[in-house]
Each structure stands twice: as structure tokens, then as C-alpha cells.
């Protein structure tokens, strides 16, 4: 669809003999909002630092629009970074911070002034030009950091967890702001975060990283609805896993025994054969909680109920101890909706809403996944 802007080829990096990135290939398209998502230690920040030039890859190369960047020092790369804690120069005013990069380009004074004021206006800080960074709020500092980077009109903007220091509400506002800026400027954004909600809501494409390897690359929707493996499924959003065994394979469908329940499912993308085990994945919002006498569900009992405003989240414990998370839209008119703790129920789902993954050791998926920033 789009032209490739930055392409990473076979990039690897190790620190003190410990591999952080393993032979990684990645093409970043011109104008897209790409997010690097993963738990801490997955290599996303190292990858960003390699793009910026603060780290040298052990192997591989970086090419930006046909130009080899690999050996270029950071100051000569046509891309800029918004740092995690902003890294505003404390001894310079907002104006001087933003003007710094243009001064380095030795632009004429009038041009610098014009461009700085333009970009400050864009982030609505034109009246704060004389302030020092410590006189600004966190959100304002954040906007200065962005202004300082975009004033240089980089081909690519790298953002290293830029919102992690802000509180929840401000983070929401800034997410919208960043999207708006990206559309207006038409600059390619590479955004690093460990917050999957942020990744899904902002990006054109998401790269899920784990232990220096790309787990999946796709649109937020693909990543959420059709995770490539158990790690992605677990890391991106809440997921329920049901062990299934294939009883028969037909032309376009599949019969699977899910914990004693016979279900007809669509044929997955991977090879399947009779007698094989598979994982049946269901997002909490795809789970239906039914009355105890309903014949088509798995029996269990409610052990937790959390009212979340628009939804009602329940944890249901199945007979074998498996816990299932269900998230249902709140409907006060439905009398059957309100279950008490300990009440027996059945859980089910609408056929076709499930996602199948081949058998892999579920236990191998990391337990130390950051739930939220």
C-alpha cells in the first residue's frame, strides 16, 4: 500500500553477551503510526535507540529511503526522538529548547523564530515561550518535548513511552493530541509503549515484541482479534483459553471437543488433523453467561462480580478449576442478568467468535506481563 520509509534488516544486539534483539527485520511505511509493544525487557527501547543512533547494532543495517543509516551518528540522522522523561534542557527556556535543533542546523535567526513560534502555536504553548521547563506542568513539558522534535521536520519521529509519566486522564488527552499532530504533520511515528490499550487505540500497525523477537505485526484489529500466538493473545488484552481436541475435520469446518462440549468451529489457518489438541481463545466480551439449565454451556459458578459502569465483569470458575473472565454489557432490564456470588451458571459463546491457535505449552507464556503502565 505505502512506500517503505525505514527498513531494518537482520538487526541484532547483545549487551554483555546477553542477546536483546535477535536478527530482526522490520519495514516501516511512510506516514504510518507504528507502535512497538511489549513487556519491559522485550527490546523495544533498544530497537528505538538503534533507530535513533544511540546504540550500534551488532549485525544488520538500517536504510532510510534508500540511504544507509547504520554508521551515521545520531546528529546526522533525519529523525528525532521524544524521550521518556522529556529530557528538556533545564537551563534553557521553552523557546531555546525548541530552537536548539534549528540552531544546530545553523538556520537564519528569522527562520528559527518563525518556525519555533509556529510549532509552539501548534502545541498551544505560544504564551509559554519564556518559561523554564520546571515552571511547566507535566503535560506542557510533554508538548514542549514533542514541539522540540517536530520543529526539525524529521522524516520519522521516535517516541519512547512519551506518555508514561502522565496521569490517566492527561494520558487520554495526549493520545488524541498525538494522533491529531501525526495527521496534521504527516510524519511517520514510531511509538514505544508497554500499554496495550494505548497501542491499540493509536496505531495504524502494532509490532508485538518479546525477548527481542517480533511475535506479530499487524493492525490493532488483527493483533487483538487474530493473535498469532498465545503470548500475543495474553499480552494484548484479556483472554480466556479453552483446551480443545479435534474430533473431525470437514471441508470448511471442524468439530472440536472443548472440555466435554461438542462445538462446530471454522477451519483455522494452520494445518489441523483429527485427534490433535488446539487452544480455543475467547475474549471476555465474547463470553456469554447463561443460566444453570442451559444445555450448551460449560458448567461453573460465579466467584467474582465487578461492576465497571458500562460493563459487568465476572469471573466464573469451571468444574476443573479453570477461571473464565466474562465481560458483558450492562442491561438493567434483563432479570436473568444478575447472578449472585456462588451461583451456578454456564458459560458459552457464539460460534465463529472464537480464535484457534495450535497447541503450544500455555505455561511457557510469560507470567510477568505488565498489565498496565
Amino acid at each position, binding site marked *: 500500500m505505502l512506500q517503505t520509509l525505514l527498513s531494518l534488516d537482520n538487526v541484532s544486539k547483545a549487551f554483555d553477551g546477553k542477546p536483546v534483539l535477535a536478527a530482526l527485520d522490520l519495514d516501516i511505511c511512510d506516514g504510518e503510526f507504528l507502535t512497538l509493544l511489549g513487556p519491559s525487557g522485550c527490546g523495544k527501547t533498544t530497537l528505538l535507540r538503534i533507530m535513533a543512533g*544511540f546504540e550500534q547494532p551488532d549485525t544488520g543495517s538500517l536504510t532510510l529511503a534508500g540511504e544507509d543509516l547504520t554508521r551515521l*551518528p*545520531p546528529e546526522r540522522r533525519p529523525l528525532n526522538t521524544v524521550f521518556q522523561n522529556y529530557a528538556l534542557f533545564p537551563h534553557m527556556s521553552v523557546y531555546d529548547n525548541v530552537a536548539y535543533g534549528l540552531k544546530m542546523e545553523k538556520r537564519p535567526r528569522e527562520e528559527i523564530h518563525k518556525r519555533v513560534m509556529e510549532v509552539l502555536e501548534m502545541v498551544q504553548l505560544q504564551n509559554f515561550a519564556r518559561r523554564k521547563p520546571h515552571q511547566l506542568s507535566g503535560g506542557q513539558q510533554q508538548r514542549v518535548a514533542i514541539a522540540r522534535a517536530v520543529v526539525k521536520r524529521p522524516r520519522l519521529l521516535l517516541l519512547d513511552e512519551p506518555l508514561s509519566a502522565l496521569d490517566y486522564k492527561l494520558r487520554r488527552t495526549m493520545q488524541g493530541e498525538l494522533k491529531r499532530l501525526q495527521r496534521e504533520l504527516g510524519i511517520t511515528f514510531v511509538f514505544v509503549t508497554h500499554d496495550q490499550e494505548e497501542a491499540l487505540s493509536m496505531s495504524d500497525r502494532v509490532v508485538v515484541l518479546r525477548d527481542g523477537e517480533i511475535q506479530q505485526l499487524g493492525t490493532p484489529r488483527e493483533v487483538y482479534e487474530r493473535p498469532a500466538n498465545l503470548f500475543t493473545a495474553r499480552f494484548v488484552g484479556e483472554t480466556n483459553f479453552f483446551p480443545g481436541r479435534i474430533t473431525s475435520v470437514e471441508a470448511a469446518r471442524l468439530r472440536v471437543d472443548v472440555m466435554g462440549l461438542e462445538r462446530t468451529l471454522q477451519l483455522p489457518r494452520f494445518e489441523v488433523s483429527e485427534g490433535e489438541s488446539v487452544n480455543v481463545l475467547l475474549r471476555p466480551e465474547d463470553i456469554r453467561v447463561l443460566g444453570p439449565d442451559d444445555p450448551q454451556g460449560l458448567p461453573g459458578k460465579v466467584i467474582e462480580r465487578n461492576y465497571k459502569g458500562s460493563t459487568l465483569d465476572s469471573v466464573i470458575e469451571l468444574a476443573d478449576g479453570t477461571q473464565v473472565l466474562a465481560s458483558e454489557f450492562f442491561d438493567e432490564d434483563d432479570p436473568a442478568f444478575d447472578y449472585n456470588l456462588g451461583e451456578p451458571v454456564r458459560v458459552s459463546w457464539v460460534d465463529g467468535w472464537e480464535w484457534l491457535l495450535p497447541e503450544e505449552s500455555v505455561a511457557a507464556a510469560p507470567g510477568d506481563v505488565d498489565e498496565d503502565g
Partner: protein
Amino acid sequence: MRMASGLQQPFRNAVLILVWSWLLLLVLVPNLLVIAASVMTRDAGSFLSLPLTLDAYRQLLNPLYLEVFLQSLYMAVMTTLVCLLIGYPFAWSLSLMGPRARILLIFLLIVPFWTNSLVRTYALKLILATNGLLNQGLMNLGLINEPLRLLYTEGAVIIGLVYLLLPFMILPLYSVFEDLRKELLMASHDLGAGPLATFVHVIIPLTLPGILAGVMLVLLPAMGLFFVPDILGGSRNLLVGNVIKNQFLDARNWPFGAAASIFLTLAMAFLMFAHRLSKRRIGEEGA
């Protein structure tokens, strides 16, 4: 932080070469020279000559010098103890003051430190002399009939050393007291310890690194500040520093002066080791 760039490498190398050569030429080599000097033979013409000998160290044990050393050590230990006795409650009280008052008080404490130490020692002489201010005051009050002999005594030297070195005891103590969390004291009381038990089992162990740092900063200079006895102590209350100075500058006995200085260096090494050990015990990485 390692960055590859054309400019950085020469700059980095130039800095490292400059610093290394300065420290090697003006710290390491001179100290090796002193060690070498201590095992050579005294020579009237060129200060030193071969053969190598341990005579200088044997001379250290000569009763005449041994007495001077012991006297110096005694005065240094007394100085340290007095500094500790004055400084410990002082640092503690200081740490209990409000933050604004503390800044001012610390400032007042380092003003003397920035003031010429010779001049301050001399000021003590004004007070301690036979017809000095202290004796005049005491006589005017009718407490004594004739002036006390204060100057040119062991006591005068100790007073002078305490006066010069007290801030060096207080500052490290203050920094450990500042880090001492009040909750620990409350916890100790809560668990049934009285004030004395809390002091012995909680406060002392936690402030031990500060105590040892203070001891280190006071004890060693208290053996080296030769001008204090020169001004306040007369000829009988000498420090190791006076011996070293006399041997180097007057008697021209370099091997002996060098050996005496190695004695001081070893004392320093021992104290530094004790300090590290105490810091490690309470889980801080020693600097």
C-alpha cells in the same frame, strides 16, 4: 553510554592521558619515591644513597622517638575523643532542627573551615596566653589568684587540634544522622526498648559509618598538623608531623622522615578499611 563518533575518540583520549599522567606523576611516583627513600641510607650530600637498609624503621622504635610517637598518638586520640564527644550530640541536635535553620547552621559550621587555619590557631593563643583573655577573665571573676599556665601545654595543643578539626567530625556525623529515619527510633520504642537500649542497639550501629568517617578525618590530621604545636605547644608536645618536618627540612634525615610518613599512611589505610567494613555492615556500598 558509548557512542561512536569521529570527534569523541581524540577528546576522550586526550582527557584520559592528561588525568592519568597527572595522577601517575604527582601521586603515584612521589609515593613510590617515599617508599624507596625509607629503605635507603641517609647521605649528607645527596640526601639518600645506597645500600638498602631497614635502619629508618629500626630508628622509629628508638625510645626517644617512640616516646614522641606515643605522645603524638595520645594527643591525637584525645583530640578525636573530644571531637566525638562534642560532635556526636551536636550533629544529632543539628539533624533535629528545621530544614531552613539547618542550612544556616551548616553554613555557620563551615565558615571557620574556610577561614585560614593558622590565623584561627593564632586567635587561640590570644585567649590561652598567660596574660591572655581567659586568665584575665578568670582573675577578674576572682576564680583564680594567679594566671594558669595554659599555653605551651599538651592541653593547649589538644584544644587547638579540636578547634581546627571539629567540623570534620561533625559533618560526616550529621550526614548519617540526617539519613537516620525517625520511624526506626519509634519502632525501637514501640518494640519495648528504652532510650538507652535504643541508643545502644539502633542509633550507635546506624551511625557507626559516620563515627568512623569522622575519626578518620580527625585522627590522621591530628598527627600531622605540625603548626599547632609550633604555635601552642612549645617544644615538648610534638606531633608525628613535627618529626617528619624536622627530619626532612632540618635534620635532612630523609629515610627516617619517609618511614615516619609511611607509618601515617598505614594508619590511614587501616582506618579506611574499618570504615568500609562498617558501611558494608549496614548494607551501603562503601565509597
